[in-house]
């Protein structure tokens, strides 16, 4: 059990990193990575929602299995994720205003972050139990945070550098991400225990 959890942690953080290897959550990765502090805020918010969504969707899927409605899974999961994001937003606003101030602007964006729906669908496809699902969700979120913070810190410098006219803006950012992905390729193989 412990071995499986460590394996999942290493895979989600490094060798199977959600962004740089599996391509989940590229939109916020490109969109919210201009500054390190906003990137960190987004990462924390995503990690929180991913762990919570993995936990909740496990039970939702069990219910769907019971009702023999598994073909409804995508619709059910996205509604669960949307509601979780909404509830988390309201809860933080009322109870922890400081945290809400830090994460608030990112929360609505998370619903359409495919890392969240992606991790839930992977959990179901791999048949993980509730503990492993939640760990996988949290670890995936941490992997997302790691990638986006690293990327933001490089991008802050790239934006000041000179580059060919046509490559200004997103093209050079994508190439930077490519080089980052190249570095993460070195971790492949770590996942096998």
């Amino acid at each position: 059990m412990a071995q499986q959890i460590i394996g999942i942690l290493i895979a989600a953080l490094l060798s199977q990193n959600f962004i740089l290897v599996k391509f989940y959550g590229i939109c916020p990765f490109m969109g919210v990575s201009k500054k390190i502090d906003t990137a960190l805020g987004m990462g924390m918010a995503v990690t929180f929602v991913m762990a919570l969504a993995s936990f909740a969707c496990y039970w939702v899927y069990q219910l769907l299995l019971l009702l023999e409605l598994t073909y409804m899974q995508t619709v059910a999961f996205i509604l669960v994720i949307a509601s979780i994001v909404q509830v988390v937003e309201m809860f933080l606003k009322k109870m922890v205003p400081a945290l809400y101030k830090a994460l608030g602007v990112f929360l609505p964006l998370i619903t359409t972050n495919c890392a969240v729906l992606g991790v839930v669908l992977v959990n179901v496809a791999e048949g993980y139990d509730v503990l492993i699902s939640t760990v996988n969700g949290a670890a995936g979120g941490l992997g997302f945070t790691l990638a986006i913070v690293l990327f933001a810190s490089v991008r802050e410098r790239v934006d000041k550098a000179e580059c060919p006219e046509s490559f200004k803006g997103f093209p050079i950012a994508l190439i930077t991400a490519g080089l980052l992905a190249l570095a993460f390729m070195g971790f492949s193989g770590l996942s096998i225990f």
Partner: protein
Amino acid sequence: MNFKKQFMEGLLTKNPVTVQLLGMCSTLAITTSLFNGLGMGLAVTIITICSNVLISALRKVIPNQIRIAAYITIIAGFVTIVDLCLQAFLPDLAASLGVFIPLIVVNCMVLGRAEGFASKNGVLASAVDGLCQGIGYTVALVITCIIRELLGSGTFGGGLLNNGEGIRIIPEGIPAMQMVMPVGGFLVLGCVIAGSQWLMKYLNNKKAKEGAK
């Protein structure tokens, strides 16, 4: 309604991939062979048209506060329908696209068109918009696919032509397999976007010169 203008917007000036940077996850992940690119493009086009039409038809019924939730529900419905149909009628494509079919739900392009266009325009215009944006998406995907497949596997038309093996253009052993891996996805898409930025600038300059004459 201006079909030509909408078509040019979808294809180049407001291309969902190269200009609006929407739906990047699937763009990067599945563009490893021509078969995948065409299949994904077609699936997204169909879903965008359907969801645009329905959302446009319902735009006066859906209350403003819950519109995003309503849109996502409708889109998720269409995505599941396409997913089930692919599994039943095109199982090879379904297996090769895998989890990225259900992930079309959160493809920001579909939701982006629903929120940005279908919620403000008529049914017919929304259908045309879905079609044009879908074509733009497919073209960007196919171009990325062709480059990545050629550099990464050395073939053209993998999964489609020549028994699924594709036509070999570069001899085995030379192509860099990194190009079909994530690294290649980022690098090639970066270059494709740079190319489209260059093309738009070129066309604008040409127009300006003609205008000066």
